[in-house]
C-alpha cells in the first residue's frame, strides 16, 4: 500500500447516508448508513459486501448519479456532482450499458469525444484499448451483437479512454471468462503499479483479495470492516513452508525440528494447481495454435497511454506464461513466500532449508510437461484447507483479529 501521510484523499466519505424514498417522498429504504471511508492516492481499494449492502449505491453517489441524503462525499476534494472532477474518473458499471448500434471503435470514439480528446489521440487510444481488450477482430461489429463478456471488455476499455487517475470498477469480472477475469486483475494490478487509484466493488472475494491493498466490508448499508487485505487475512499464529520434492524421512526431520522449536506441524500435503491456472494454460495453448474464435481474443497487456511512462506493455498471456516459468525455474529457496513467520524463529527455517536441500537435489525430478503456475499470493483454498484441517488444533483455527474491525 502506498504511503498516505500528508496526502489529500482521492475519495472521502463522511457520514455518507442515502435513503430511498417512495413516490410521495416518504423514506423507505436506508441504503447507505453513515459511511466513513477514505481512499488514498495510488491505492487499490475494495468495497465488499453481499447483494444489497450498499456498495453500488455508494459508488453511484461518488459518480453523481445519486445525491446523498445526508453526509458528504468528495472526489479529488470536490463534490462528485461537479463535472470538473469527472475528467479524472474512469467508470466501469456493473453491466456494460452500451449503445447497441455503435461498433467498438465508434463507442470508444464517442466517449473520447466527451473527454475532448483530439482526433489523433482518440484514434491512438481507441486502437490500443481495443487491442488490449482483445476485440480487434470484432471491433467493427455493432456492440449489440457482442456476448456479455465481450461487452464487459468494451466496458473496461471505455473506462480507460481518458487515462483516469481514479478508476471505479463496479463488479468488473461479472460475465467474464477466466481469461477476461485474469486480464481485469492484471490491468488493475498494472494500473495500481502505475500509481492509479482504483475503487473496486465486488462480492467475488477472490478477485478482491488478489488485487486490493485495502478493503471495506459493508453490510446493511454500514461499513463492518476496513483495513489492509494482508492485515485482515494474515494468520500470524501459523507458518507455511513450501518445499520441492521431499520424501517422508525429510518430512519427519522437519516435524522433529518444529517440535524442538516448541511448535507442531499441523498439516503436510501436496498443493494442487488452481483451476484458473489450468484454464489459462489450455486457452493459451489454443491461441498459440491460432484456432479460430468468433469471440474475444486474448488481450495485449495494458495500453501504453495509461500513465505508463517507460512501462512495457507485454502480452498478457505471455506475461502470465513467463511468470509461471519464472517460478518453476527459480531455485527452491526463491523468496516467494507471501507471509513471513513471525512466531517461528528465522534460524529454524534456515536449518530446515539446509536439511531439506540435500535429498531434494539427490532425487530424480518429475516435473510436469507444463509447469503449474503457482499463485502469486497466498492461495485462499490452501488457507481454507489449512483452517479446516487444523480445527483439531484448537484455537489455531481461529483467524487473527483484524486490526480494524467494527460491528
Amino acid at each position, binding site marked *: 500500500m502506498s504511503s498516505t501521510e500528508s496526502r489529500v484523499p482521492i475519495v472521502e466519505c463522511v457520514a455518507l447516508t442515502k435513503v*430511498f*424514498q*417512495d*413516490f410521495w417522498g416518504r423514506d*423507505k*429504504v436506508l*441504503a447507505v448508513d453513515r459511511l466513513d471511508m477514505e481512499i488514498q492516492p495510488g491505492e487499490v481499494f475494495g468495497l465488499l459486501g453481499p447483494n444489497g449492502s450498499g456498495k453500488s449505491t455508494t459508488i*453511484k453517489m461518488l*459518480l*453523481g*448519479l*445519486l*445525491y*446523498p*441524503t445526508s453526509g458528504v462525499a468528495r472526489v479529488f476534494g*470536490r*463534490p462528485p*456532482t*461537479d*463535472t*470538473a*472532477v*469527472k*475528467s479524472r*474518473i474512469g*467508470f466501469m*458499471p456493473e*453491466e456494460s*450499458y*452500451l*449503445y447497441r*448500434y*455503435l461498433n467498438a471503435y*465508434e463507442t470508444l470514439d*464517442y*466517449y473520447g*469525444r*466527451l*473527454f*475532448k480528446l483530439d482526433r489523433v489521440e482518440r484514434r491512438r487510444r481507441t486502437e490500443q484499448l481495443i487491442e488490449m481488450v482483445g476485440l480487434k477482430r470484432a471491433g467493427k461489429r*455493432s456492440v449489440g451483437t457482442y456476448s456479455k463478456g465481450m461487452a464487459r471488455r468494451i466496458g473496461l476499455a*471505455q473506462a480507460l479512454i*481518458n487515462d483516469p487517475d481514479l478508476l471505479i470498477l463496479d463488479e468488473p469480472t461479472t460475465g467474464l471468462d477466466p481469461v477476461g477475469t485474469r486480464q481485469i486483475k492484471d490491468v488493475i494490478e498494472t494500473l495500481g503499479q502505475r500509481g492509479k487509484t482504483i475503487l473496486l466493488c465486488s462480492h467475488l472475494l477472490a478477485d478482491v483479495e488478489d488485487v486490493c491493498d485495502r478493503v471495506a466490508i459493508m453490510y446493511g448499508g454500514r461499513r463492518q470492516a476496513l483495513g489492509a487485505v494482508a492485515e485482515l487475512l494474515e494468520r500470524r499464529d501459523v507458518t507455511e513452508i513450501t518445499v520441492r520434492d521431499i520424501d517422508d524421512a525429510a518430512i519427519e526431520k522437519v516435524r522433529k525440528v518444529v517440535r524442538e522449536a516448541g511448535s507442531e506441524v499441523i498439516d503436510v500435503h501436496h498443493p494442487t494447481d488452481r483451476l484458473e491456472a489450468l484454464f489459462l494454460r489450455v486457452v493459451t495453448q489454443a491461441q498459440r495454435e491460432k484456432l479460430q474464435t468468433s469471440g474475444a481474443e486474448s488481450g495485449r497487456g495494458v495500453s501504453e497511454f495509461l500513465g505508463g511512462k517507460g512501462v512495457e506493455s507485454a502480452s498478457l498471456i505471455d506475461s502470465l506464461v513467463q511468470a509461471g516459468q519464472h517460478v518453476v525455474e527459480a531455485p527452491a529457496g526463491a523468496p516467494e513466500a507471501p507471509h513471513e513467520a513471525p512466531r517461528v524463529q528465522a534460524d529454524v527455517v534456515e536449518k530446515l532449508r539446509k536439511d531439506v536441500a540435500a535429498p531434494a537435489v539427490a532425487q530424480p525430478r518429475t516435473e510436469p510437461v507444463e509447469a503449474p503456475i503457482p499463485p502469486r499470493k497466498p492461495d485462499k483454498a490452501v488457507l481454507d484447507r489449512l483452517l479446516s484441517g487444523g480445527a483439531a488444533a484448537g484455537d489455531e483455527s481461529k483467524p487473527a483479529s483484524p486490526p480494524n474491525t467494527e460491528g
Partner: protein
Amino acid sequence: MNENTFFMIMFAFGSVMGLITLGYVIRQAFSRQSGEVGGWELRGAGRRIGAVLRTTLAEGLRAKVASGFAALILISIPVFWLTSEGDGTIKGKVQMFFTYSLGFSLFLLAILTVLFSCRSLSVEIASRQIYGIVSKPIPRWQIVVGKWLGVILLDLVLIILAGVMTWTGTRMTVSSFTKDLEKELVTYGNLTPGQAATAVAALAEVRGVGRKGLESPVVTAICEMLGKTREEVGDILLRLPEATRVNLRRFDELRRQVLVARAMIPVEVPDFTKEIEEIYQSLKNDERLPTDWSEKRIRDSITRELMLSYCSIGYAEGRTWEIKGPPPEEGKDWVMSLRFKMRAPRQPIATQVGDITLETDQLLCEWALGDPRKSNFLPAPPGQYPINTANEFEIPQQGIEKDGTILLSFMNVDPRRIEAIFDLPGGALSVMYRIGPWELGLVQALLAGFIPLCCLAAFGVCASTFLSFPVGSLIVLTLFVISSSMGFVAEALAVAKEYAPPEHDRELAWEVRRLTVETMDWALSIGDLDPINRLMEGHAVGWPALWRATWKYVLIKSSLVMILAVMIFRRRELAAVIV
C-alpha cells in the same frame, strides 16, 4: 346545470389537473436534493454536444424505428406520384402530389419526432446507458441540448430526403406531360417532331393575362415560335384531344401560379381607433355601457363589429382598396394576380334573373382595376364567383401604376341580396406576384414544415427528462394532435372566450377565461405557416415569415422548454430507485 356552470366545472377540473402537472414538473426542476454542480463549461461545449448529437443521429439512422419511417417516406412518395390524379388535369395532379407527399412526410416526421425525442433520454435512463455518459465530464445541459439537436438533425436529413423526392416527382410529372404533348402534337396535330418540340418550348414563353380561345397567350406564344397564324395554331390545337387542350391552359396556370414562388400583399384593414373612440364615448355619454363589462371587453366588441361591417359588402354596395405592390416588370416570368376568397352569411340558392342563371354557392360581382378618372381604368364585366373557395385572376400590367399602386374596386351586384364578406384580417383579399423560382418556394415550405418539428422535439426531449417513454410520448402526441387541429381548437376556444355569460357572471370570470384561452392558444401552437397549402398556391412562405416563426417557435418557445428540461435533468437522480 346551465352551460356556464358546466364550463366553469370543466375549467376548474382542467385547472386542477394543470396545476398538479405543473407542480410535478416544478418539483422535479427544483428538487430539494442537490443537483449537478459546476458552471456551464462553455469551453469545448460544441465538441461534446457534437458527440451526443452524432450518436443520437447514428441511433436515428440505424435504429429500426427511424429507418422504418425513412423507408415509409421512400416508398410512399413514389406511390403518391403514381396515384395522384387530382381533378384530372396536370395542375391538379401536381397539386395533389404536393399535398400527399409533403403532407404525409411531415406527418410521419412529426410522429417520428415525438417517438424519437421522447425516448432520447428516458430510454437511456431506463436502460442505464446514461451512467456511462453522466460519469463523463459533460455537463447535463450539453447532453439535453445534444439530444435535441440530434433529433432536429435527423428530421432535417429526412425532410431533405422528402423534399428532393417531391421535387423529382414534380419535375418528372411536368417532363412526362411535355413529352406526351409533343407526341400528341405529332400524332394529332400533324406537326413534325421538331415543330412539336418548338411548340412545347413555346409554353415556357407564355406571357400576359390569360384569355380564352384564339386570344389566349398560349396561342400567341406558339404562333410566335412556329411562325404560324392564330387560325393555323387554333386548327392544330383543335385536333388535339379535349383533355390535352384543357391541360394546355392548366399547364400555363401551373407554370405561373403553382410552380413559382410568389409573395402576397394582403389588403390592409383600416385603422378604426378614431371610430372606436367615438362610439365608446358616445355609449358612455348615453350611459349605455354594460355595467359589468371591462373597458377592454367593450372596446374589443366595438372593434369586432366595425371590422365585420367593413368586410361585409351588401347588395349594390362597393368598396375600393388601394394596394401598394412592387413596380411592374417586363420579364416573361413576371405575373401579378389578385387572389380573393368570399363567404356569405347564408347559402345562395340558384335563381333565374332574366336570361342569367345565378348559380348555387356563387355571387354575382363586378371587379375593376385602376382609377375610373384615368385612362388605365380596366372594368371587368359582371361575373359569378364561387364563395368559400379561393379565386385568382391575373392583373394586366396596365392596371398597375408605375410605382406599383393598385386601385381595386369591388361591387356586389347579386340581386339575391346576399352580403359578400371578405375576411380581410385573414388575408381573404390579396395581390400575389412572382419573387423567384418554385424551388425557392419549396425550400421555404420545407423549412416552414421543419420549424414545428423543432418545437415538437423540444417538448419530447423535455418530457423524456422526467417521464417514461410511453407516458411522455402519449402526452407529446396529444399535444401534436391538438396543435395540428388548431383551427378547430381555436374556434372552440374563441367560442369559450366570447361565451356570453349569464347576468350573474362577473367580470373576473370573463378575464380568467380570456387569459386561459390565450395561454392555451399560445402554449399549444407549434407552427402557423401552413406550408403545404401555400405551396399548392405558389405562395412562398417568405424569409421574414420564416424568421418570425423561427423566433417564436424555436428561439423562444423551444428554448423555454429546453431550459425547463435542463433544470429538471440537472436535478434528477439518474440512478434513483423508487420504492
